[in-house]
């Protein structure tokens, strides 16, 4: 009976914690569905009288939010494609090929992993300004196209493919690039998907760098748009629209995560948490 009681208490505590984690999501969603008067009601209403789904349309049109979504999609797509290619090529070279300076170059990759992005933005900002690339897609995309951590993660995966397979393929006359395409890519696909997903989440949620290099509304991304829109000229915040926009920004990633969560968790397990 003791074990059963403990189990019940465990589930109860987990449910309690789950409710606490969900409260912000609930408050965001319920506010997004309120009318302006309901959002500004004291004491606050837990649920709207009738759900105002038109808030989502309004949020998309009050600020050029469709534009922000479009920009974010363009930047994420470019970053994911480019960084995946860069990562696969480099990881493969480190995992399978022999060349002079391998140890030194790999050390550069490892060292890059610990440099905070926050330090790099100063010089990268100066570089972009000097190139005249402020307010351009290049400025938003290029610095994200290389990710030392992803190179490291994928190298670990490729190294787990038996070396004999490589030797056999080379003896059969398969070039190293064809081996990469025909053998490594299919086997390493789950990890590649993990790195692509991590890049995507990172880009979608990034704020500081895009905010620094874009001042033009036409080039803003969702995080920046979200931060700056929905405050009227008198300083009043249109909470229901702000929360509707926040919902629209949050939902796509949550859906993506729930569908593909096994790849994200697998990537974290592989990242070398040698408990």
């Amino acid at each position, binding site marked *: 009976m003791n074990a059963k009681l*403990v189990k019940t208490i*465990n589930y109860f*505590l*987990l449910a309690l*914690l*789950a409710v606490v*984690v*969900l*409260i*912000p*999501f609930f*408050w965001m969603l319920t*506010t997004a569905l309120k009318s302006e008067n309901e959002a*500004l009601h004291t004491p*606050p209403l837990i649920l709207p009288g009738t759900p105002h789904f038109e808030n989502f349309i309004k949020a998309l049109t009050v600020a050029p939010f469709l534009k922000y979504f479009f920009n974010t999609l363009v930047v994420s797509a470019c970053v994911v494609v480019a960084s995946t290619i*860069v990562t696969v*090529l*480099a990881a493969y*070279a*480190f995992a399978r*090929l*022999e*060349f002079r300076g*391998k140890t030194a*170059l790999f050390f*550069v*990759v490892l060292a*890059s992993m610990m*440099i905070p*992005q*926050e330090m*790099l*933005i*100063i010089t*990268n900002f100066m570089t972009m300004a000097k190139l005249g690339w402020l307010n351009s897609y290049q400025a938003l995309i*290029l*610095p994200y*196209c*290389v990710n030392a951590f992803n190179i490291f993660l994928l190298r670990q995966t490729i190294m787990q493919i038996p*070396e004999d397979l490589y030797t056999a393929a080379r003896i059969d006359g398969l070039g*190293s690039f064809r081996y990469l395409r025909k053998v490594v890519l299919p086997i390493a696909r789950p990890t590649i998907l993990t790195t692509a997903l991590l890049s995507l989440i990172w880009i979608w949620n990034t704020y500081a760098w895009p905010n620094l290099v874009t001042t033009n509304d036409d080039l803003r991304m969702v*995080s920046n748009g*979200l*931060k700056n829109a929905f405050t009227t000229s008198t300083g009043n915040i249109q*909470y229901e629209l*702000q*929360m509707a*926009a*926040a919902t629209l*920004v*949050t939902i796509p*990633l*949550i859906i993506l*995560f*729930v569908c593909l*969560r096994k790849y994200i*968790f697998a990537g*974290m397990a592989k990242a070398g948490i*040698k*408990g």
Partner: protein
Amino acid sequence: MAGLKKPRVRGEKKYDSTAYLYLLPAFVLLAVFTVYPVVNTVVTSLKLDYRFLTGDFVRFSAQHYADILNDATFRRACVNTAFLAFICVPLSMLISLIAALLLNSVKKLRGFFTTLFYLPQVTNVIAAGMVFAFLFNTNFGLVNMVLGWFGVDPVAWISGVGIAKSAALYNQAYARCLFILMVYSLWSGLSLKVILFLGGLQNINPQYYQAARLDGTSRWNIFRKITFPLLSPTTMYVFITSVITAFKAYSAVVALFGNSYGPIGDQSKMMITIVGYIIDALGDYLSPGAISIASAAAVILLLIIMALTALQLKLSKKWVHYK
């Protein structure tokens, strides 16, 4: 299989020079956007009154480091960042460890709860920060509504009324903002830590538990004598990576408290962080010396993070024998 080492083919190692082609894109990008910036930031931090447009500077000097360390705003940034790193992180670890222990003790719904606890990690930081600011809204927020059920009068959580004139009011406003920041960081920090702790718990050999149960060891003693020591490498890893993350805090603070890092009426950038200090200085890049100041602050941040990383590498070597 892994133990069998293939005998090397006689003769010298065969080098494959096409390897450099594979590495070219990555290293061009790393050189331009990582290696050069590190070097350049260190150099720029030592240029006195560096002007961005002309590239002129007075001379090389460590003056800007002295300026920063004497700057009240930078010290405030350090205090706030330290609050996140050394108060919020341990608290968040405690909650995450409890959550992971609970998850590890149940079978049904474990995947469901794990997924749910991970949601804050994939939520846009700006969106989440704005939601928290609204949760703590004086008139329309959920927090005051719940407090109202217990007869508590609405609290003006993010309010700068009177703080310019009265130190006591300033400190009260500051304490309220720190509380909000703490609640936010507990919520957002839960995700990764729970997953990491759960992974660590699942790596512990179940035979220890079976043996302890046969001996009739109490739950608390099992935790104290088996789980906690065997989990210590994970705990250390979680602690140091979380502290490093805390030192990079910025977006959340902006989302919670706005671009002036504080309630309306606050001129002191009450809730600024080290990264916020860097970005503010950088935003002022046309005035002489601003970029040097940003760079000097960034170098200080880099040194802190390097020290923490070195500590982590050292400890992970020391504790590896637990496995």
